[in-house]
């Protein structure tokens, strides 16, 4: 029953780097098709928590995750889990916009090329859909073959989102996606987040409580190694 309501469930989770705990005894649940904001002071482990949900921390030497982390109904640390499939279903957008030194179009289909089945997939249709979903289509539709680097930071961040959306993830993790942007671009991203929640579960790490209040239905506070649901005293 709870799995129909919650996309992510954490139970007694302990995250540590070389034995030093960043988060200890965390239990919480994140609702499906809702925006959940993760707030807390710098260095409290918000990003570590977020990155754990798609096992991005696996490559960091000394990182260890204990406890039960269930994403879309399965424990992601189960030995049988396909971590690449998990990362495809749980997309992630980073703080700093990252585009590859390729054309705008190639950036959108970057991940799609490896996930789409070889027969009859129409890349350009899916690229257009992803760009429309990321509110970027009208700005770039006439220059898809131009280098992605010519776009503004805000556009690059939306391009990174389009690239993630193109592989059709069910959950979107966003690690302070607006902190490197000016306020106008940040507003565009916030509108985008609100429009995406209809079809996606969104977990947003943010520094700004105001932003969390504007876009999120649920709030998770991370502080002093603990994670709680109720509105916290931060800042």
């Amino acid at each position, binding site marked *: 029953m709870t799995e129909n309501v919650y996309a992510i469930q954490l139970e007694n989770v302990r995250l540590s780097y070389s034995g030093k705990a960043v988060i200890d005894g965390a239990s919480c649940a994140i609702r499906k098709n809702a925006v959940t904001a993760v707030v807390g002071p710098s260095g409290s482990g918000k990003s570590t928590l977020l990155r754990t949900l*798609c096992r*991005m921390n696996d*490559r960091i*030497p000394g990182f260890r995750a204990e406890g039960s982390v269930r994403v879309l109904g399965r424990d992601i640390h189960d030995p049988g889990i396909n971590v*690449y*499939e*998990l*990362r*495809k*279903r749980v*997309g*992630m957008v*980073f703080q*700093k916009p*990252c585009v*590859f*030194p*390729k*054309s705008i179009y190639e950036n959108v289909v*970057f*991940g799609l*090329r*490896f*996930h789409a089945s070889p027969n009859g997939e129409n890349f350009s249709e899916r690229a257009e859909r992803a760009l429309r979903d990321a509110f970027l289509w009208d700005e770039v539709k006439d220059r898809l073959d*131009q*280098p992605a*680097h010519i776009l503004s930071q805000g556009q690059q961040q939306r391009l*990174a989102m389009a*690239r*993630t959306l193109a*592989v059709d993830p069910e959950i979107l993790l966003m690690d302070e996606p607006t902190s490197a942007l000016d306020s106008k671009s940040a507003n565009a991203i916030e509108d985008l987040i609100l429009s995406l929640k209809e079809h996606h579960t969104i977990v947003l790490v943010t520094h700004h409580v105001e932003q969390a209040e504007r876009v999120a239905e649920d709030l998770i506070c991370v502080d002093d190694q603990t994670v709680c649901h109720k509105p916290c005293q931060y800042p």
Partner: protein
Amino acid sequence: MNPRLWKERATILILYGLTGCGCLVLAVILTTVIMKGAPALSGEFLFEESRNFGSEGGIFYQMIGTLILMAGAAIVCLPVALGSVLFQTEFLHSPPLKKMFRFLIYSLNAVPTIIFGLIGYLFFGVLLDAGVSWVTGVLILAVMILPTLHVSIHEAVESIPDHYREAGLALGLSPGQQMRAVILPQSMYGMVTGTLLGLARAAGETAAIMFTATAFSGVQLPQSWTEPVTTLQTHILVLAQEATNPKALTHAWGAGLVLLTLVFILISVTLWIRSGMEMEAER
């Protein structure tokens, strides 16, 4: 005057002086080779085979032999270097093992080339029964340029910004896909530069291939795996030893000029390809 300003001016002067010294040495070498080698150049010299122990005829087969060895070494070495770099950066996770791997590669770089020749001959020539042959030469040169290629490709792979890797990873790319989509395209510069540096090193190498892969005269194109080739390097060395025959000596300078030109062409082509890739990357 302000002593800080003096110091600054003196530093700049010393730097200019040192740069000047370096350029001067290069200019002297280039002028000498061009002045002494140019009289030997002619159609006959470039397109005919050498006769009468090098004092007559040309250096056609020497040029071909040099190209065979250099190209062969690059073709054999590149995949091995690339594989060892990817193993070190993508699959080797333990820091002490990584350190040891790096130490081994650097040690390989420090081995005198004659030792490569000796061990290479014992291993490829005697044990694998290749004898004095161009294949032995190619394999020895490939091992010799391996550290150069490895180090420059490794630097290129290591300098790929982490956010590119993370972006690939977050899209659910497997290690193999990550290599194809992110690591190889982003480290292409290093591969080209490394191959170039390796080839330049191979082009200058005489000791390791002198007695393992090359013969001085009576050699044309190799017809089988076990035949030797003749190279510009060997040719120059042997002719220079015949210092009494002025014609042979001119031919040695001529061969030197051709070798220099080959390397120069190689560098130009590589830089051209590189600048093309730079534009591609900017696109």
